[in-house]
């Protein structure tokens, strides 16, 4: 259950509403560090999280995107991870990572069509467990930027539970949710329906287009991570101030 700030918007899967205190990830990480047993995960929590009132322009971030075998985190698994390091002023490709992983469930044909990663590629790829240490090191101390946190948050959590018996929590800025705050304040009313007003699409490509960002081909984890990173810069430049506290954005 997470409070996502004064904008007070119902997010698609966090299911929480209402005004409340700022979500304090630094405090939450202390708690998690004290009760986590797995050493790599414990080290991740011990690295801490930025304070909730840190101005967004000072927050180190990692844009993250997964390609998966399907959409059900309890059954499906991750086939690739793209990571791009960023802050409000610069996205740095030098530190970008891109892994193809061997999922523990079968690669389904429908998903192959989407992300284009083939059976032979995943056969030769490592299990997530083999790159976990490196992944957690990269994530340490950073706020994670995603488009639709339902995927990255739930899948990483489920994948770790499956592999090390413990799940993971991490602070996320969800560019989809930031779009939703603007375009999904209320369900379309009678008048909207009468005039055939469509719901504004908050999909990644459509959201980017609203900020005049270029079209990138979707469904490559690295490109999608980059696409989310650029979208966040555009959203903040348009709708927030550089000094907005990170707690106004994260969840």
């Amino acid at each position, binding site marked *: 259950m997470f409070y996502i700030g004064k904008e007070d918007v119902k997010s698609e899967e966090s299911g929480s509403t209402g005004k409340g205190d700022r979500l304090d990830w630094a405090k939450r990480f202390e708690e998690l560090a004290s009760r986590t047993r797995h050493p790599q995960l414990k080290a991740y929590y011990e690295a801490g999280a930025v304070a909730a009132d840190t101005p967004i322009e000072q927050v180190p971030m990692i844009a993250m995107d997964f390609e998966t075998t399907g959409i059900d985190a309890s059954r499906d698994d991750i086939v690739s991870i*793209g990571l791009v390091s960023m802050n409000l*002023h*610069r*996205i*740095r*490709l*030098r530190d*970008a*990572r*891109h*892994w*193809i992983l061997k999922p523990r469930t079968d690669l389904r044909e429908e998903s192959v069509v989407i992300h284009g990663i083939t059976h032979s590629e995943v056969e030769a790829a490592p299990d997530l467990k083999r790159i976990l240490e490196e992944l957690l090191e990269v994530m340490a101390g950073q706020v994670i930027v995603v488009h639709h946190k339902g995927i990255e948050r739930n899948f990483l959590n489920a994948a770790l539970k499956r592999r090390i018996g413990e799940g993971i929590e991490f602070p996320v800025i969800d560019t989809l949710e930031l779009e939703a705050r603007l375009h999904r304040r209320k369900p379309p009313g009678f008048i909207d329906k009468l005039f055939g007003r469509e719901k504004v699409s908050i999909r990644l490509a459509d959201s980017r287009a609203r*900020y*005049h*960002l*270029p079209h*990138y*081909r979707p469904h*490559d984890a*690295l*490109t999608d991570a*980059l696409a989310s*990173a*650029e979208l966040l*810069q*555009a959203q903040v*430049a*348009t709708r927030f101030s550089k000094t907005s506290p990170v707690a106004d954005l994260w969840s």
Partner: protein
Amino acid sequence: MQAEHLEIIDFLRRHQPFATLSEETLAKVATEVEISYFKSGTQILEFGQLTESLYVIRSGAVEIYRRNGDLYNRLSEGGFFGEFALLRHKRTRFPAVALEDTLIYLIPEETFTELFEENELFADFVEVEDRTRLRQTVARKEDANELMTSEINVLVTREAIMLDTRATAHEAAKRMSEEGVSSLLILHHTDAPGHPDDADSPTHPVMAGLITDRDLRNRLLAKGLSYDTPVTDIMTTDLIHVEHSQLVFEAMLAMLRYNVHHLPVLKHQQPIGVIALSDIIRYESQNSLFVVSSIFRAQTVEELKGLVSEVRACFTRMVREDANSRMIGSAMAVIGRSFKQRLLELGEEKLGPPPVPYCFLALGSMARQEQLIVSDQDNAMILDNSFDPDKHDAYFLKLAEFVSDGLAACGYTYCKGDIMATNRTWRKPLRVWEQYFTEWIDKPTPKSLLNSSIFFDLDGVWGKTEWADRLNRLINRKTRHNSIFLACMARNALLRTPPLGFFKDFVMEPSGQHTQSIDMKRRGTAPLADLIRVHSLAVGSKSRNSFERLKDIINADILPHGRGQDLRDALEFISTVRIRHQALDLEAGNDPDNRIEPENLSDFERKNLKDAFQILSNAQKFLKYRYQPGRVN
């Protein structure tokens, strides 16, 4: 796993200067890119700000300003900036503002420096000074095309074999065999002191004639003359010659035009060699120029008209073979001139010999040897001073009409300003022409010169061409130190200005306005030719071709250092683009014109054209300053 940034690589590959890099290098550069988003209206770079990257526009639009706040450039996708600062003091010279929401790919300094140092093409493209970039573009094109831009010098591989006028035919034949040559120059060594031409060096030999294998066969053996016949009896006199600095293909044209196979080459009036047709054939150049000889073989206007498609084919072929603009302009001028000459021959056959001598004039681009495929016929007639309108004018009007209609049939449209010999005003005796020029030069008004400046590029085509030379000398003499006249000419030369550059698929004007297309003649080559003409009159140049005039202007040293060369490069590049687009029109089966839509320009052309326009614009500012009325030059 090494991250591969497909979108970044794809983008870089599509745009200069990155398009010149190998795939491997591109992939590596992509991993070093940094990215930043700038909302519309945001300052991207401030004056004096330290720059640590090259800024490449991924999407959106950016305006670059001069320090004084003038708009310097407007860039869109694929445009880059910040290179000045990176290559110099690392402080921003040109501030940049996002005109639209803009995504920038930044190439960090280290990466940029490495690319700049290790990739020549990359370095050329982002070179510090705009004009340098243009110079390299033009120079590289010329390298690729060495044969067609070579000067006659390169054909002269050995000294001329010469013999004195006192030698016999036998001696000549012996000498030719010994030397293994097919021709000999015959020199006259004058001993007569006080000869006016040789006052400074009385022993200077004078070229008297040329003797060839064929002369020995036709004029000696076939006629059964004695071996002791003096060479002077069988040699060819009244030689057509070429200057060592003319272009090889001009020598070829001279051979075609005069139907000779050997041409003496002169340097400072002295023969330095002889070139033969075979020397040129070895250079295997534009066979298409044989169209000139077809023109002279045509017996009727209908036949001439039938050659139009050959002329067009010749033009497109030269463009495809990367001939430079001077060659194409010159070839087209020779073709146009040949049409006129042949039409005048045919006209005289039809109407009978002229009642008094006359000279037919070419004006404007033909006189400057800068004619292209789309051309008006600008012409005039000088008549003998004994001309009596009542008795003679009917003949010359008919002749003028015959030529003008014939030219129109051959694709040279009637002059809209009616500057044609069919117009009585431009069909006058020599003394009237002299009055015309005296009036224009002594009492100039910008308005009178607006209509008459075309007469300041004139060339005799047919008949008493020495009268054209006489008018040119008069122009030379009267204009050179005439600051009021020059100021008037300069003012007219500033009436047509270049655009600022391109933005997306529009032409951008200095006001920031956009237009759909650009007239490359009106906004490019014409104002260049105009301003070059003013300088050339000021330095007393006798050349008419703009490139030749520029040489004289550079030698006279009246421009700031390097600016003459810049103008040459700008003229060459703008002309080349204009020519190339006319050729594309022809190949697509459209009527060629001078208008170009930016969507049809490559990135490379846009960038270089922008540089060329900038050079023209600066040169116009200088022209205005230099020829202010009352300023002593």
